[in-house]
């Protein structure tokens, strides 16, 4: 495994990545970086340019759905605003279902840069094959398939 926290895997028609992190928050960040890399390979290099920040709030049934729904929300914002978001700061991150809603949730500030054009027009983040789990080394990981 490389230290960037994600790698691109094979898939016949779409795009499959694997992302990992020592904590769930780190996994979420690395998955976000993986998506940004697919959208615009050099987005991270241009970090010095003026950044755009957005707040996102997501509630889901479980940790895997929370990750996919989080990435979907970022993708929606990315497509509407033509911004590649490559970083996230979590203001809240509850990984046990809340007593009243029974859902897990997060609140984050995502950071990105405006782009003239995407390299890859990601249509959607799918739940297909996604499963957040800890490997024997205690690292959280999952595969994610993007529809492109």
């Amino acid at each position: 495994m490389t230290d960037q926290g994600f790698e691109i895997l094979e898939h016949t028609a779409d795009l499959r990545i694997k992302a990992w992190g020592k904590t769930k928050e780190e996994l979420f960040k690395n998955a976000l970086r993986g998506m940004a890399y697919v959208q615009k390979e050099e987005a991270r290099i241009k970090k010095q340019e003026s950044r755009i920040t957005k707040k996102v709030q997501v509630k889901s049934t479980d940790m895997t759905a929370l990750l996919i729904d989080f990435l979907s929300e970022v993708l929606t914002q990315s497509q509407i605003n033509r911004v590649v978001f490559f970083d996230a700061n979590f203001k809240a991150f509850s990984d046990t279902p809340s007593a009243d809603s029974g859902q897990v949730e997060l609140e984050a500030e995502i950071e990105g840069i405006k782009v003239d054009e995407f390299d890859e027009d990601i249509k959607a983040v799918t739940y297909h094959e996604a499963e957040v789990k800890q490997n024997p080394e205690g690292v959280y990981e999952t595969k994610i398939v993007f529809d492109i």
Partner: protein
Amino acid sequence: MNITKNDLKKINDFVWEIPKSFRADMRAPARIFATEKLLEEIFRDRSMEQLVNVATLPGIQKHALVMPDAHEGYGFPIGGVAAMDLDEGVISPGGIGYDINCGVRLLRSPVKWFEVEDKLEELATEIYHAVPSGLGRGGRLVFDKNKFDLMLGGGAGYLVEEGFGKENDVLHLEAQGNLSQADPSLVSNEAKRRGKDQLGTLGSGNHFLEVQRVDEIFEETAAKAFGLFKDQLVILIHTGSRGLGHQIATDYIRLMMSAMPKYGIVLPDRELACAPFRSPEGQKYFAAMCAGANFAWANRQTITHWIRESWRKVLGDLSGELEIVYDVAHNIAKIERYKIDGKEKELCVHRKGATRAFGAGNSELPDDYKGVGQPVLIPGSMGTASYVLVGTNESAGLSFSTSCHGAGRRMSRHGAKKIWRGSDLKKQLEAQGIIVRAGSMSGLAEEAPLAYKDVEEVVGAVHGAGLAKKVARLKPLAVIKG
């Protein structure tokens, strides 16, 4: 449980069956339309397992089906078809896909290609500039909120009303380019914002425009009815509902995932998320999906209008008008009538990477095609052959009147990019005399012809199985991509 060829029962040279007994959760057997050679290719990825998963959906009728161009998707395999009982069955956004009404439209000209050979470069350049990819700058046509909703409700016909086409254009579109069940108020603001400046844009991935020539006619009567003749110049448009459709699918898959426990539905893959067709969630998704489909028809109508403008600009009035042969959806759910156990009933037919193929006499067909059947448009991989087929009446019983939708990928985009460079591919295509106008060289490499199955074999299987019959083969003169 891994599926092997030994688990399949051979029905005939083109049809194979996975019996219902293969897995305890199957509610129907599964059928694969393929030659033995294509079957080998289909086994190389997880399409078969995904097909078995489709067979577990509540209310599925007869068989879960997959077409010869099958390959791995998510939830449904690409090429998957499932018809559901309206009362007992479900509707699954994953059975339609994120690109709602991704589809193909074919335009015909009155000229032979060599009569305008010296103008082809200019025509390709003109079309490339007239039809933006939409990956960067937005499209040229932006409607205000009110008009945008009217377009979602009216599809291609609304664009014609707005001056983007001729009155009789809609006669030659599947569903006349408008699903009347569409409800724009059930499409989220996010979806509308994503689609706001995307009318008349091509997108990326496998979407493309091709200027083509009719290379061979196989069936004269149908070709004549469709207005096709040898050496004719035609133009193929392949695109869908862009960000609007993608967001509708995203929104409703999420809604259905949270609704499934309420209906006691348990599935082997989250991407099959579904709700009973008659439930509030099912009805809302269906109405939103119809609006997404209408956007795609409006998109292809807008692109048609700009291609016609390019045509007139480059060739003047002497080369006549471009007319629509037909327009088909590849990713859609439709309410259609079929005989089940001798009784005719309405079903919700999911087609994901598959094309409707009505035979002669079907009441939805325009008068000029009623005698022969529906044109079925099969885009090949970039730079290879595309096909026009005609639907058969036999296919109603075999495949819920469904045919394949393309060549079908056999290699990943990532894998293709590792092997081929876009610039080399461009040279290869140009060496074959094909003009290339592409915004992205890596996008070009992803669509390398060898990353796809052999379209001849796929179309041969469809023809052999009787799902649709060959009418004409089209060869590219110019490829235009985002």
